[in-house]
């Protein structure tokens, strides 16, 4: 059985290798279509047109001002377009009529002035409505350009506004500082006045006190001088008395000394000696008169020193009050409002999966058209090969031979699977080498949807072969179904361009699931896990087709069809 299977497999592969046209169809044709589609549909996928694919954009600068210059400068550096400076609208329209361009941009006269004066202005985009995509791209480009210019103008205005605000803020602060300084000067002046007044008061008090003191001192000195003079005269008057009293006292002490010596000499007799006569007692007044000094004598005689003279109060000097200058009460200076132009709303696009934002067109086209040609190849490879076998009569012979007929069928399907996988691998390799397509983070994971769609396509070829009895029926039937599957399934354009209901319908096609897996792996750069479910669905469809195909095939063969 295995030997027969191997022989049948080798036979089918050999048949394929002998089919030069078939090989071309499987390999070269898809490469050509992929190249053509990739380049021609680049804009459809949102890729940047470059070089020969760049759009021609006639530019009519009727303004001649800075806005026009800015637009021209920016467009000249835009690689997605080829700028063609056109002197007049008429010539721009002529270019559109000759279909050399899909749109032309006119900068009307006065645009710059309007901008400078703060008025609005309008750029004119002349369009050829047939070139929808080109217009859409150019419109986007012009919108970006307009946005950039407006952003720059807003930035400049904001800068000027900020400068004015800074100047106002500086002035406000300068004024506040000046007011502060004025207040400070007033306060200093007032303090100086207060100080002067205090000093005047001090001087007044000091002068008054000095005058009073001098007056009192003069009076005291005069009083003391008179008392001294009185004392001196009293002393002079009392001097003989005192001298007598002093001599008397001296003679009394000499008597006593004498008496003492007499008593000493009288020895034992001293006791017997009579007491001398007692000197007369000095009158007390005389003693005090002799004893007191002139001051006390004056005080006693003339009374104590004269009480201070009660001076009349000095008149108070009534200094004028220090004037209270009003405070510099500035109304609170309002803060310079932070006037700002409304900010621009920028759009930052970020891939949710970490994949590059810009799509390589061929990341979509290579798998898409590879799947298309794979399915067409399967249609031709399986269904036409089965029809060939029937037409050649080999099936008739094989069904009479010992090797199970199912072996022949399995070998035929297996050979197509091998060829299909090889075809896909080859196309992806060429896509990688030629167009730099992404193979995702795990390139080998691409084998999952590849084997899945190959299996489903092979089994579908069996369904077509079993459904269509003639070659003439196979091509239209299979082609219609495959073309529909490919188109609706997102092989030719992003499936998101389709309406929702069509996307729902597309889930019934294996192409949809294959493309979903390829997009996840190649464009969204997801891991193997993303391809598991689509691959399982593909194998499910393949199994369904296989069962249906075998049933139809067996039914027809048994009927001898």
């Amino acid at each position: 059985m295995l030997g027969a299977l191997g022989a049948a497999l080798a036979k089918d592969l050999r048949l394929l290798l002998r089919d030069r046209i078939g090989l071309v169809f499987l390999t070269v044709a898809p490469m050509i279509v992929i190249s053509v589609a990739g380049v021609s549909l680049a804009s459809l996928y949102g890729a940047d047109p470059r070089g020969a694919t760049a759009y021609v954009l006639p530019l009519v600068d009727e303004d001649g001002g800075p806005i026009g210059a800015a637009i021209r400068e920016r467009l000249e550096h835009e690689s997605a377009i080829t700028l063609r400076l056109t002197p007049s609208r008429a010539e721009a329209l002529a270019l559109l009529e000759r279909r050399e361009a899909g749109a032309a941009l006119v900068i009307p006269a006065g645009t710059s002035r309007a901008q400078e004066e703060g008025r609005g202005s309008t750029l004119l985009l002349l369009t050829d409505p047939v070139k929808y995509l080109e217009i859409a791209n150019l419109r986007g480009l012009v919108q970006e350009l307009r946005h950039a210019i407006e952003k720059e103008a807003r930035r400049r205005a904001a800068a000027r506004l900020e400068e004015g605000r800074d100047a106002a803020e500086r002035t406000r602060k300068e004024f506040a500082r000046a007011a502060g300084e004025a207040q400070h000067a007033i306060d200093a002046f007032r303090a100086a006045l207060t100080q002067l007044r205090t000093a005047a008061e001090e001087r007044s008090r000091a002068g008054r006190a000095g005058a009073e003191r001098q007056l009192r001192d003069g009076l005291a000195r005069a009083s003391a001088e008179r008392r001294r003079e009185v004392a001196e005269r009293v002393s002079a008057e009392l001097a003989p008395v005192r001298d007598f009293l002093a001599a008397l006292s001296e003679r009394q002490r000499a008597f006593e000394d004498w008496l003492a010596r007499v008593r000493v000499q009288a020895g034992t007799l001293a006791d017997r000696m009579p007491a001398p006569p007692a000197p007369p007692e000095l009158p007390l007044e005389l003693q005090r008169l002799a004893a007191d000094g002139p001051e006390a004598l004056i005080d006693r005689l003339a009374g104590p020193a004269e009480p201070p003279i009660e001076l009349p109060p000095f008149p108070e000097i009534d200094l004028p009050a220090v004037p209270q200058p009003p405070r510099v009460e500035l109304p609170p200076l309002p803060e310079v409002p932070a006037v700002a132009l409304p900010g621009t709303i920028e759009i930052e696009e970020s891939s949710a999966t970490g994949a590059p934002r810009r799509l390589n067109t061929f990341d979509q086209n290579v798998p898409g058209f590879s799947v298309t040609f794979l399915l067409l190849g399967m249609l031709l490879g399986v269904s036409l090969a089965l029809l060939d076998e029937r037409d050649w009569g080999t099936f008739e012979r094989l069904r009479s031979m010992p090797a199970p007929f199912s072996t022949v069928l399995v070998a035929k399907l297996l050979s197509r699977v091998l060829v299909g996988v090889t075809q896909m691998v080859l196309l992806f390799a060429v896509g990688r080498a030629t167009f730099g397509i992404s193979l995702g983070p795990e390139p080998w994971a691409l084998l999952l949807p590849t084997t899945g769609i190959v299996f489903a396509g092979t089994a579908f070829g069996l369904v077509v072969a079993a459904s269509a009895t003639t070659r003439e029926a196979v091509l239209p039937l299979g082609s219609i179904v495959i073309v529909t599957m490919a188109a609706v399934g997102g092989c030719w354009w992003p499936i998101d361009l389709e309406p929702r209901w069509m996307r729902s319908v597309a889930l019934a096609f294996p192409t949809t699931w294959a493309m979903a897996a390829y997009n996840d792996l190649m464009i969204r750069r997801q891991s193997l896990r993303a391809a598991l479910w689509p691959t399982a669905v593909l194998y499910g469809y393949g199994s369904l087709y296989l069962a249906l195909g075998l049933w139809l095939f067996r039914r027809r063969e048994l009927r001898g069809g």
Partner: protein
Amino acid sequence: MARDGWIAAPRVSVYAAVDTAIEVDALEKRYGARQALGGVSFSVARGEIVALLGPNGAGKSTTLSILATILSADAGTVRVGGHRLPAEARAARRTIGYVPQREALYPPLTARENLRFFARMAELDPATSRSASARVLEIVALDGRADEPVAGFSLGMRRRLNLACGMIHRPRVLLLDEPTVGVDPQSRERIFEAVAGLASEGAAILYSTHYMEEVERLCSRVVLLDEGKIVAAGTVEELVAGIQSLPSIRLTTARPLPSQWLSKLEAARVVRHGAGDLEIEVAGLADVPAVLLAAVQAGGEILDMRLHRPNLADVFFTMTGRALRDERSEAESR
């Protein structure tokens, strides 16, 4: 069903128990409302070449397809190589070599590649496949072109290769469906040799054809089918004898012969009379000279003379008639 004046078809039901390789008894097959086979019975012994004759749509290909296990019968008993069909189809296939009417070949492959592939499908091992391919290539005289793609072969070469593919595994039963259609005499001769050679090795061969001379030359027995039934069976001689047809002479004369010119010969009678063109039926070949002499004596200048002896074609037309069968044939091919 025997037609009026036709020979009732004998029911072939006698088998050589040991040597019989093909046994068919009361075989029936219907395609929808149309009955393709209605109780066909015959056998083919080992080493025997039996012709399966019949007009288009008679049921020849259906019979061969059932014997080749491609179709299943609605009723009847079929044994091939001793294996009952369809129950033992797999075993039966090991004994069968089937040569379909179309050249069942892969045109892009070479003759050798075709042979090796079919040898492998016949469950020969690779080495045996190689040697068997070389052997049959020599038999069919294609060893010099063995490595050329079949697409470039002439019809005769393809027919020979078609036969070689059917006999590569030395089948005990060879089923041939009009193997010589459209081939040149040389290829036909080589095919005959190959078939005869295989029969001489003991293979039972059922040979479907329209060519009577091939049957007369190659086949020991004939099974004549019409409308799904056997209308005659036996050796060629038996069948010819069975229709009781007489030899005839076709004369072309320069001038018309007078009436009664043949009245003196009782063993001969004119069966068709035209201007200068006559067909005369004679009782035996010995009567032919007398007829010619009578014509000359009657003043007829004989320009051409053709003698017709009863043959298988006469049997064929006698048993199946001369009506065209295109419509029925197309229906069967569908």
